[in-house]
């Protein structure tokens, strides 16, 4: 089994301003996610709904290190945090979740298909493993254009058992394409644990089998993720070759709205297990680190929280006040 990277950056490498930004970003992700079930139960949001609570460091430690636009990001249906990190307005995200004309996909995509191509965000994807073959094409195009840009592609542990992922890995390894793969190993493919879904749980080894180097990283710690991502991104820009980061993490809530906190997850994991992982919460850990280094006081942390909550509430108010898409847009955008 690949060793887990726990290396954190040297103290003087970290700027207070950057950390404050990342702290605020993670908190915004958390507060936005906390609001969406409420709006679902108010029947303001429909469809499926997959939250990112607990996994924030995987996005906040990587996407802000990219050159956007220029680089590209692809991810799964658990995509709200990724859109936020790419710079999509919370208002446009919330409006999309509520199926409004002001949504980032004009209300045609919904939660699983947030998108913002002008900011390099090519979107969520509703199919497990689906973005990985697409990343092969994005990576091929980036190499073809030769401008030194890279593609970051997120996917889950469940996707590692999809055939298309392995076809794409094989070709990315073969053609040597500038793609950073982020495996969001949150331990469960819906309700099926990693141990119950593969005879070879060493995912780094599987990437290596396709000619893609990689390592496992503690995904519950922002500074560790950021450090690993920075190294990986620099390496990809220098060599042009793909790299694979398996991020060990945990989702606090159920797989989706049908598997919420009060229901199904008890069939495949215990409340004690969830509580144990919550002790490693990436937002709390970053706050503790920043407080210890004198970057943040308790009062400042509370003020940031108030700002972030207000931003989410503003996004909700904007979305609720936005019109539904006009009916005559039904047949628009089928073709370009």
């Amino acid at each position, binding site marked *: 089994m690949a060793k887990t990277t726990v290396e954190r950056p040297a103290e003087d490498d970290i700027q207070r301003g950057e950390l404050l930004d990342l702290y605020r970003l993670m908190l915004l992700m958390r507060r936005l996610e906390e609001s969406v079930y409420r709006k679902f139960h108010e029947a303001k949001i429909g469809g499926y709904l997959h939250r990112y609570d607990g996994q924030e460091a995987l996005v906040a430690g990587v996407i802000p290190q990219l050159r956007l636009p220029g680089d590209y990001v692809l991810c799964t249906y658990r995509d709200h945090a990724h859109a936020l990190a790419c710079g999509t307005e919370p208002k446009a995200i919330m409006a999309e979740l509520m199926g409004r004309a002001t949504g980032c996909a004009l209300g045609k995509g919904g939660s699983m*298909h947030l*998108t913002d191509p002008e900011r390099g965000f*090519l979107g969520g994807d509703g199919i497990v493993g*689906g973005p990985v*073959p*697409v990343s092969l094409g994005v990576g*091929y195009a980036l190499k073809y254009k030769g401008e030194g840009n890279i593609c970051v592609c997120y996917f889950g542990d469940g996707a590692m058992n999809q055939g298309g992922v392995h076809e794409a890995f094989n070709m990315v390894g073969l053609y040597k394409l500038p793609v950073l793969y982020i495996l969001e190993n949150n331990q469960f493919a819906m309700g099926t644990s990693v141990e119950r879904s593969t005879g070879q749980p060493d995912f780094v080894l599987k990437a290596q089998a396709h000619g893609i180097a990689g390592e496992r990283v503690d995904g519950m710690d922002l500074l560790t993720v950021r450090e690993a991502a920075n190294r990986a991104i620099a390496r990809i820009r220098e060599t042009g070759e793909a790299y694979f980061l398996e991020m060990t993490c945990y989702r606090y809530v159920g797989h989706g709205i049908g598997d919420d906190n009060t229901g199904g997850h008890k069939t495949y994991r215990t409340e004690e297990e969830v509580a144990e992982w919550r002790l490693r919460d990436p937002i709390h850990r970053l706050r503790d680190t920043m407080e210890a280094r004198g970057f943040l006081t308790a009062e400042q942390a509370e003020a940031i929280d108030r700002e972030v909550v207000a931003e989410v509430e503003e996004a909700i108010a904007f979305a609720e006040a936005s019109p539904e898409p006009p009916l005559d847009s039904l047949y*628009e955008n*089928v073709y370009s």
Partner: protein
Amino acid sequence: MATMRYQQALRLAMTEEMERDPNVFLCGEEVGQYQGTYRVSEGMLQKFGPQRIVDTPISEIGIAGMATGAAMVGLRPIAEFMTWSFALEAMDQLVNHAAKITYMSGGRIHCPVVFRGPAGVGTQLSAQHSQSLESWYAHTPGFKVVMPATPADAKGLLKTAIRDNNPIIFMEHAGLYGTQGEVPDDPEFMVPFGQAAIRREGGDITLISYSRGVQLCLKAAETLAKDKIECEVIDLRTLVPLDMETVLASVRKTHHAVVAQEEWRNVSFGSELSARIHEQAFDDLDAPVGRVGGADVPMPYAKNLERAAIPTDNDIIAAVKRALA
């Protein structure tokens, strides 16, 4: 004008478009070093190099994803499937990704990609290699579906496909690759989508088909002319978009129609076409629209069984006589 084979016309279209636009590239199994399974891309690796003529492993999901992803960020890929039967491996990338990304993104992401390769039935290739599945794609919103019947159309439609900003399902017919025809030299020669061609004029009955089915219709029309039955033969060229105007204008003149296709009859493109003619020209029809198609069985291997499963000009003649009876 030059006389060339259907497969050469396809190569000419790709070559001209790759010379015109550096964002166009071709990827697929055996397209480069092997010179193309059906020699469609012969010589192109030598001309354009390995970055633009990309040999892939036998990985249809990878090929489809490669083309889709590259199209989403500004290139104009042509992905060749060794046959459309193998594209079944790639259905998720085709249907759930390429066809839908424009709609799902509210029109913010474009996907200008051509998926092409041979389709069609015959030559004892049996169940897994001999089939025609155009209805699957025509059924899916987001695709345009192109099925050229002549060398000139092979060139003109493929050039239009490469310049289109949408995912194109471009189905060639393996049985037509060797057919010869006049092809315009003009590098701006394009055949627009959604404009059917009247391949033979006639006043008694309208025969509607596409791809190799057009040849069968023309052969049947020739035979029927000896019995003083004049058939109008329409080549649809593209199933999506569909030129119903040309079809309806002809049916209003002849008052009879037969639709002919190689694919299975059940829930097929011919079913849709027949339904639309009935819906839109019911009062002009003197008889129900006849349908000719493949037998609803997996393609058998034995010569006599295969012959019985594939529609012939005699099947079309029989359908015409039923319609005119």
